[in-house]
């Protein structure tokens, strides 16, 4: 019987300032800031970093690998709209060495950080709940 091996989690290392800048940039693509708050205002990166060090540690390697590829692709030097197009290419499976599934994972985690309970590190000042019109939020 074939059994797929479980992912082995390595001890968590804090992101470098470059990795964090890249993560902020891709999260900003998921939920851009404009007249309504985005990933930045909600502290989505704090949510992701904290969870990757804990409950979501099995995704840590996938993030580091994708962020390294984005760095090599000069992602931070691109204007906003070019970044969007680049991530759309990733999602379409057209960027070598970054799996399309990275976008799904990133979007899921961004929304968790935007809409989850603030105690997990994101949704600062319940900003995500306020955006959709539930002032009291989904917590007490």
């Amino acid at each position: 019987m074939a059994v797929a091996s479980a992912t082995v989690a390595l001890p968590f290392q804090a992101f470098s300032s470059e990795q964090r800048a890249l993560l902020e940039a891709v999260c900003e693509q998921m939920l851009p800031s404009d007249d309504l708050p985005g990933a930045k205002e909600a502290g989505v990166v704090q949510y992701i970093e904290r969870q990757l060090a804990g409950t979501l540690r099995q995704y840590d390697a996938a993030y580091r690998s994708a962020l390294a590829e984005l760095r090599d692709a000069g992602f931070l030097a691109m204007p906003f709209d070019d970044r969007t197009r680049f991530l759309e290419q990733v999602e379409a499976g057209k960027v070598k060495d970054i799996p399309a599934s990275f976008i799904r994972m990133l979007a899921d985690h961004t929304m968790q950080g935007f809409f989850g309970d603030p105690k997990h590190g994101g949704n600062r000042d319940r900003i995500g709940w306020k955006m959709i019109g539930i002032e009291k939020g989904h917590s007490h």
Partner: protein
Amino acid sequence: VDAVIVGAGAGGGVVAQELSRAGFRVALLERGKRYRFAETDHDELRSQRTTVLGNAFGPDDERYKRLVKIGDDPQFRIVPASDGNYGNVAACVGGGTLSYGAMAWRFLEKDFRMRSTYGATEGSTLEDWPISYADLEPYYTRAEWEIGVSGKAGANPFEPPRSKPYPMPPLPFNREASLLAPAARKLGWHPFPIPMAINSKPYDGRPACIACPHCVGFSCEVNAKGSTAVNVIPRAIKTGNCDLRTECVAKEILLDATGDATGVAYFNGNQLYEQPARIVIVACSATESARLLLNSRNKLHPTGLGNQTDWVGRNLQGHAYAGAVGLFEQETYDGVGPGARIALCDFNHGNPGIKGGSMIANEFIRLPYLFSRNMVPPRMKRWGREYKHWLATHYKRTMSVKGPIQEMPVWENRVEIDPSVRDHWGIPVVKLTGKRHPHDIEAGKFIATKAEQWLKAAGAVETWKSLPGKGTTGGQHQAGTCRMSADAKTGVVDEFCRVHTSDNVYVIDGSVHVTNGGFNPSLTIQAIAFRASEHLVKTIKKG
């Protein structure tokens, strides 16, 4: 003790009350904890609806895992307890009823006679139950009064005869239900308020529902929800005859040379204990009950207790949910919990070319993260500026109606154990295989079409279907793995839930369901538990 009950959920809780009230001494073993509200709180990311940060109601990822093979995947994978493919229900006092939405449905007459109604079905072990709705009716009534159900008797024209009305009037309609009710009538359908195990007025020493927006997925902060953790189990303990032991993990049922049970071996912490008992009741839900039987072996039960004819663990069922989402110009959201308030049974049976079907109901109040992932139109990219503005402007302008498709039982959909993969205590874990019968998907498409029709009639300007997946079934509505049968060759337990091949072992949970209805199954589990308990009390008294 007179009886050891493994599992303090929907079924086990009822049995604990009934036996301890009758004066028998009961040990109620529960592998999970007894949670206070503050421990689980209203944390969407760690709830019974979203487990992205773990299971709020157990079991934990550190000690529990399963081996799963999903659909046509050639490989088995080991998954932790919070993985969606694990097929979890819950592990805590109250079981699934601590965090459920508390819909309290009676199955319909035809749900007990699926084979007679629809005939043999290729690729399915579709069969009639050995008992009828009429046999179960008095116990449905008992369950409604003991658990505390609010509803309107006679409001559902498809409901079979009942001997007594509900103990409480229904919860009031919310804005969604007020839009959906006239729409259904316009279509010639028959909407009614969903029966719920939620107090619409103070009942049984517990307060009325405070209409908060966090219901399904969380425990109730005021105990208005009729969980076994707040009704039958406390009453059992109050008799002085029931010893609830939490964080006790059953290893195996101990068997003697005649094949009968002598007790249960279980771990508390890492210490192994043996609890002798005259009667053993297995109530761990369909996956874990099958696992416990398969892990209990001796010469007379070489392939597992009750498994002489290979039926233990077979026919795992759940519910293939199907429905639709609609967008509205006006606000449909009013923030009044529980949110799910209106249903209809026009499509449970009698659908052209379809065997069975489901009730259709509006959804509970949508949780923000799940809304952002699961209720977005398929035409839309699910990230970026346009998406964010859509979320901001549509959270209060959507509505979802859906139903739990009555699944065709499949022999190959099964729970096994695998000695090569063990949990924290060294107990072989559950191995899940199988995929849904193609008919479940067809029935899902039919129900989704009706759901779209309903939403459009209520004023939706755009609708889209949500269809069930083809993968492994089970999950929160898991059932079927220890089928109830008149003939010992074609099932695991008799009509009173006693294992055919053992005099003193009972399985009393969703495992015994021959078919799982087009409804949430908790009230049926509890009605069966009241009926089996009555029989058990008589049996023990006779000696």
